[in-house]
């Protein structure tokens, strides 16, 4: 039975590189996929592209490709990545230049675009925003980016046309993996059963080490060997859609039924209806079975016809967010920190500083879970000897945000005894909302560059 080996080269934009290089050298891979776009990343990349038209791709692109390309060529591994971010065209040019400089010959690079619909946002003014239900037109003037989560089709076509490296912008994460699988196994766009299986393979690999022992260890309960040296995962996918998740020998981490189960359910809602641009995947009857240490067989996924919409992320200039912190220690630390918190709340009211939303918490006490859970976990709050006041808020005006930072800093000479370690952060926050845009409106384009 034909099988394809895909390695995961990155689970987020800034992920480690050496585990990916190890996979290229020793993994007997057919493909390596670098997933590098978080929800907000592409909006920030669009801002960069506005300033510098030949930028707007992943900032580690040059660093990664300089080391990846020679190994990928030597071991005949094709590369798929969304490192193009807001500018796949520019990213493809960069990759071509790197290949040329390295003396690599006969390399075909494909840039897949069509996800960027910012210039057509007027058509969607009346659509409801998924997060709030309000019409999009109230946010449109603040929008800075609009990218649809497109599917696997562009990647599949690029591979069919001989691309060695495929660079995209926004593509649904699992589709980065479905693209090569659909090409290799000849799945048609309406073979939902197989697309559901391919989507599970992609879903398992899209977060890098999160399926091979990363983000799993809980000493005393869940032990992971050599986590400092965790290996990135490989999926071996068979023609019938079953897959084995594994990793390289000699690397840290582990692949077990437990690591695989955690990742199957990561970031999904109804396991029977996992929406992607390619398929409505159904993970509700999936089974996992350990074949050998670090070898887990996954089967039982299926799929149903996809919806007629692509989720589209809109980045918009939302508000200024400030965060300011100061620490108190020793006996009475909690009382002094809460006094400081009360002072800040009164100062903001006294000075009439406009704040849309304010959050005052105490790091080490209740900053993660607020009071109900924290009291259950800790009993009383009064025994803490290392408490950090955290003031966070949202405002429409930068001056207000900066002013609040000064108020927290003023706790040094004007606040309770023994406060120290003030840090203030102010940022012009870009937020994301989503629309459902008809998929028929979106045409995928592919541009090819060749190093001869």
């Amino acid at each position: 039975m034909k099988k394809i080996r895909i390695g995961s080269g990155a689970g987020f934009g800034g992920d480690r590189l050496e585990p990916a290089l190890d996979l290229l050298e020793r993994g007997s891979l057919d493909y390596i996929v670098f997933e590098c776009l978080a929800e907000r990343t592409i909006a920030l990349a669009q801002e960069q592209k506005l300033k510098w038209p030949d930028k707007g791709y992943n900032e580690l692109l040059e660093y990664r490709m300089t080391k990846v390309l020679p190994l990928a060529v030597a071991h005949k591994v094709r590369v798929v990545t969304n490192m193009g971010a807001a500018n796949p065209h520019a990213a493809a040019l960069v990759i071509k230049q790197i290949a040329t400089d390295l003396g690599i010959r006969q390399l075909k690079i494909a840039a897949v675009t069509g996800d960027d619909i910012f210039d057509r946002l007027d058509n969607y003014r009346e659509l409801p925003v998924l997060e709030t239900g309000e019409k999009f037109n109230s946010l449109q003037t603040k929008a800075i980016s609009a990218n649809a989560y497109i599917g696997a089709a562009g990647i599949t076509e690029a591979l069919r046309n001989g691309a060695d490296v495929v660079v995209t912008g926004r593509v649904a994460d699992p589709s980065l993996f479905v693209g090569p699988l659909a090409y290799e196994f000849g799945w048609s766009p309406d073979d939902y059963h197989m697309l559901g299986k391919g989507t599970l393979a992609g879903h398992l690999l899209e977060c890098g080490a999160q399926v091979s022992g990363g983000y799993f260890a809980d000493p005393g309960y869940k032990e992971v060997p050599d986590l400092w040296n965790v290996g990135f995962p490989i999926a071996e996918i068979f023609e019938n859609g079953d897959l084995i998740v594994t990793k390289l020998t000699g690397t840290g981490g582990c692949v077990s039924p437990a690591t695989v189960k955690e990742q199957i359910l990561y970031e999904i809602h109804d396991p029977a209806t996992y929406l992607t641009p390619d398929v409505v995947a159904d993970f509700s009857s999936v089974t996992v079975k350990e074949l050998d240490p670090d070898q887990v067989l996954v089967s039982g996924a299926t799929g149903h016809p996809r919806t007629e919409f692509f989720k589209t992320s809109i980045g918009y200039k939302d508000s200024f967010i400030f965060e300011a912190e100061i620490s108190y220690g020793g006996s009475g630390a909690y009382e002094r920190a809460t006094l400081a918190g009360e002072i800040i709340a009164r100062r903001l009211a006294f000075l009439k500083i406009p704040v849309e939303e304010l959050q005052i918490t105490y790091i080490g006490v209740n900053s993660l879970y607020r009071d109900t859970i924290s009291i259950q976990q800790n009993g009383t709050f009064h025994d803490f000897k290392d408490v950090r006041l955290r003031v966070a808020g949202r405002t429409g005006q930068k001056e207000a945000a900066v002013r609040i930072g000064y108020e927290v800093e003023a706790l040094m000479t004007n606040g309770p005894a023994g406060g120290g370690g003030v840090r203030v952060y102010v940022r012009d926050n870009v937020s994301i909302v989503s629309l459902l845009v008809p998929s028929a409106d979106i045409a995928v384009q592919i541009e090819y560059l060749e190093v001869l």
Partner: protein
Amino acid sequence: MKLREIAHSRTGDKGNISNLSLIAYRMEDYPRLRQEVTAERVKEWFRDIVQGEVIRYEIPSLGAFNFVLKDALGGGVTRSLSLDAHGKSLSSALLDMEL
């Protein structure tokens, strides 16, 4: 006994929705989890954090549940004021629930 003794969990996020898996270490504990860790109990446990409804999905083939917590991330990961804007640490709080 804390939930942590018999199950493990991971948090995921999408917009303003958090999801917490709950996976039995041993399949024989699954019925007990089904009976005791209801959507209502999880909603009550996270009442300071989750403003919306809590839905529990069952995945018996994995010995697992998936809890979907709506309106749980301070307006959404990209605009939340919380220190842990993604709510990544919520899974550890779930495991601190008493059985």
